[in-house]
């Protein structure tokens, strides 16, 4: 367990660093550096004149600090955020700032603040960095790399500081902001800071306005070539309606004469009364395609897993399901299945789900296998996105092939040479290894 002193040290140093970045400008940083150097050089006032620079710069910084206490204005802020954005791609939004001051304000800047990515002490004690068992004892106990890894998972770069135009007294202005999310998930905006620099431009005074909002960041997606989903249309009892609901529901097509064995509930009483002989309703039972997009989540949550999620998202976004359904299946805290297509909603809800998919470290692949095999009879085909292609996964693929399933298998890896096609050797056009770093090119050339 990491000692509390280590946690407090990391917390304090990160707070200080954040405070310095927020409050000290680049010019202020330079002045501080010059103060330190002049203090060292000017220790003996008889040998150099650096002590004059020390007193001058220290006085300058002192006045900058005094001015920084004088910013007391009040503002209101309204942010107009999109619902979704995509990891790695910039998105724009507007922000309106309203001034409650009776004086015009110029030279102000706007700084957005995101939610604090640091873990609590309780959380920090239970965290485990992927691959932490390979670290030495000291690092494992003090958890420095664990701390950095956790923050890196949650950190996003806020929009750069934006210089604001003149705000009239009691008036409002609207500015456009642009931000590029680093990774999928949710961006939580915590507050908005309006800053004003001291006359010398060394320090920023800050007025914080609480403005919590969030944006869902969809996974990064690549352009894929025209991918045809494998498999044929299969009988789905109950038709489209039953595909989306539970219970009997059939599509009425026409009337015909009663035949022995027809259920009584199908008799059309009005027609019998008219014609004098029993007449039954005939229904159309639908045949259509249902495909599964199987996402392997049994990894350590590192870059390979993120790339696999991007690959799955790329298919969701670019594959035209047409008249078919697409079931996204993966294991998180349990086995999940989400369906899209044919009135079920487009790919957007599925992308939203993929934005929050996490790696599964406490369950076994057999859970996913079981879930897929149960639905295999009604699946036209499967697109599998694996993190590896070990024996377990190869056996799973063999089972699906044995059940008549049409497959398209993608394996995301960092070393292409380690992957053996196994049961997919006979269908090399349906087996693709995506090596990390060249996924984009491979997908576009499928």
């Amino acid at each position, binding site marked *: 367990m990491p000692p509390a002193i280590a946690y407090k040290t990391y917390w304090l140093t990160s707070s200080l660093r954040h405070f310095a970045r927020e409050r000290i*400008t*680049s*010019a202020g940083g*330079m002045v501080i*550096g*010059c103060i330190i*150097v*002049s203090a060292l*050089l*000017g220790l*003996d*006032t*008889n*040998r*150099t*004149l*650096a*002590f*004059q*620079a*020390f*007193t*001058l*710069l*220290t*006085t*300058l910084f002192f*006045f900058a600090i005094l*001015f920084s206490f004088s910013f007391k204005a009040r503002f209101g802020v309204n942010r107009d955020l999109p619902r979704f954005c995509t990891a790695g791609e910039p998105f*724009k939004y507007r922000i309106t700032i309203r001034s409650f001051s009776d004086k015009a*304000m*110029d*030279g*102000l800047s706007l700084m957005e603040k995101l939610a604090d990515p640091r873990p609590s002490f309780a959380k920090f004690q239970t965290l485990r960095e992927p691959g932490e068992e390979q670290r030495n004892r000291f690092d494992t106990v003090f958890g420095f790399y664990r701390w950095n890894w956790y923050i890196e998972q949650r950190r996003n770069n806020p929009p750069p500081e*934006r*210089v*604001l*135009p003149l705000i009239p007294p009691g008036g409002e202005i609207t*500015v*456009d902001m*642009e931000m590029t999310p680093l990774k999928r998930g949710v961006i939580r905006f915590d507050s908005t800071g309006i800053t*004003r*620099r*001291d*006359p*010398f*431009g*060394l320090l920023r005074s800050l007025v914080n306005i609480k403005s919590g909002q969030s944006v869902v960041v969809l996974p990064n997606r690549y352009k894929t070539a025209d991918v045809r989903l494998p498999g044929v249309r299969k009988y789905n009892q109950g038709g489209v309606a039953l595909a989306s609901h539970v219970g009997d529901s059939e599509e009425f097509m026409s009337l015909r004469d009663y035949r022995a064995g027809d259920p009584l509930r199908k008799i059309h009483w009005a027609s019998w009364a008219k014609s004098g002989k029993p007449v039954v309703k005939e229904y159309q039972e639908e045949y259509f395609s249902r495909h599964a997009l199987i996402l392997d989540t049994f990894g350590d949550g590192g870059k390979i897993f993120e790339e696999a999620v991007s690959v799955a998202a790329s298919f969701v976004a670019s594959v035209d399901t047409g008249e078919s359904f697409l079931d996204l299946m993966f294991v998180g805290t349990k086995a999940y299945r989400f369906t899209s297509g044919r009135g079920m909603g487009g790919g957007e809800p599925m992308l939203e789900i993929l934005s929050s998919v996490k790696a599964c470290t406490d369950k076994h692949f057999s859970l996913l296998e079981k879930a897929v095999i149960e639905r295999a009879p009604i699946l036209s085909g499967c697109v599998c996105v694996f993190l590896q292609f070990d024996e377990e996964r190869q056996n799973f693929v063999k089972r699906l092939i044995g059940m008549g399933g049409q497959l398209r298998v993608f394996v995301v890896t960092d070393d292409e040479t380690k992957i053996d096609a196994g049961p997919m050797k006979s269908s090399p056009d349906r087996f693709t290894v995506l090596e990390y770093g060249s996924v984009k090119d491979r997908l576009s050339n499928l």
Partner: protein
Amino acid sequence: MKYPPQFLTGFALLFWGWQTEMMIAGIALATIIEGARFTQVKYDFKQRDFRNVWNLCGAIFIGVFFFVYTSGGGYDFLTIIKWLPMIFGLLAVVVSYSESRIVDYRVFRLFYWERAGKKIIGLDFTYPYIATIIAATSAANVRDIWFYAGLCAVMTWALWRFRSKSYPVWLWILALAIVITAGFAGSVGLQMADSYVTERMVEYFAESLREDTDPFKTHTAMGQLGKLKLSEKILARVHRAGVKINLADPVLLIESSYNTYRRTAWYTARSAFKDLKPEKNGVTWRIGKGTPGPERIAITTELKKGSGLAFSVERAVTFESLAAKKVGVNRMGAVKLTSAPEFLNYSVALGKESTNIGSPDHFDLAIPKNLEPVVGAIAKELKLATLRPETVLAVVSRYFAEKYSYSLELSGRRGKIDPVADFLLRTKQGHCEFFATATVMLLRKAGLPARYTVGYLAHEYSWLEKSIVVRGRDAHAWVSVYIGGKWRSFDTTPPSWVSADAENSTLLEPLKDLFSYIGWLISTWRNSDSDTDYTLPIGVALVLLMIYMVSRSMGGTKLNRTKISSKEDQSGEIRSGAESGLYKLEKKLAKTGRGRHPWETYSAWIARIEDNETRPVIKCVQPLLDLHNRMRFDPTGITETEKKNLDEGVGAAITLAGRISDGGS
């Protein structure tokens, strides 16, 4: 990030050149660096090229450092500081003639500069370079008002760019004027405070530092109040050599003797120095009579400004390997050097007996009137007058050992009572000065000529240095008594004084000793006149190191020359991707009243200005925005083909924009 203001670097360099009297260098550097503003020729330097130049500057710095510390011609570390603008001027020149001017901070790292992500975290090297110039100017130490004036000018000029627009200009000027005035007052106050503190510290440590010992007078700490402060600083190193010698045996190092006591101070009467002539080799000096034996005591120490008293030892006959201009001795046994090296390394050859001290006279038997009653009473009690000289020594030694104890506490004065009398009658505890003074008086009362002798007891053997180290706290006072026709040392201070003084050592003492030893090794090497001169091999090694670093620096550097518009270069903003044609299109459309607001992204801008007239231009530009953004923000940039596509596309858009009339919103 903002460019530094025009000509600020040049001004700073000229100021530096004037103050350090290196005007030619200042003018040359200023001309080259500021000349970059007037030329359209720029080079496409990459971060690796900056790193190579930085390595080269480091190699030059090492060379300068070696030169300064071996030349011995009055150069010191301040010389290196003064030359820094020249040393790092090469990097400043390269940055000035570079397209981007942004240097990744990792370039300056000692190790692992190529690790971490590709994103550049840059800084403009010019501002740190200006700070270096000012630091170098301060090292010139020209004590007039002009340094402060120049400093204020540079600071004002640099800060103008960063001023906040929230305040009117008059307030900025007023605030700066107050800062400059207060800063000047602060610097005057700081200098006065420094002088005051320095004086107090010199007084505070005066007793425990080996300052220039006065052969004619020595003050004691007797009569003071408090605790005797002792220094753990190593002042000298002693190495014994000879037949059957225990290397760790203690040695008494003598500085001088005194024969007249008055009011807590000892003086010397009739002790003028007589200059000696060296022997034929010019470095051996005969101090006493007799033949030097095989026993030698080698002493290394520092002599401030090359003049002062040298350490001597009992039975010294000759001083060997002593390269001094003048060596004088007096009848007290003090040896005075003039124009000797500041780093002294000499050897004392010992004989069978002391022959370098003059015969006693009436001063060596005098007892001050105020001590006569006390000393007389004790001498009577001990019946010293009836004893033989050797027995007197034994009785006196036993008397002090049994009835007195060692202490560093200073009990001050009681009215007009002499501290020695107070020591003998009341306190019965004190440090070596008390014991030595009291012993001298008692021996004189017994009819034995005696003198008060000061010096150091070299007793602490250092296994690291393989010699005896002498610290400030080893300063000692004892008695020289004349018995049997010769002078000999006699010490009644309890032997526990050595361990009692050592208790005052600090935890940092071993670390300080290590640094002291390293410094001593360097000094020994620098001052050695042995046949083996290491300057050349070390110099060659360092030149080879420099050549290696230079070749590493220049390997793989290709100069790709580019030409950029001087108007774009003169803007107040540093923009990577400044050569993107989209800026030209922006200016073109601005003339039609469709300019981009500073806070607008390009996408938002073209969306805003889209109308029937601009639609063809927008259609042409829209696909190019991604290329432009990558050119600006992507650390890997864009390929030549993509740049060509961008230029062609923008060119076409500019042509279309030429057909648009004025009057857009």
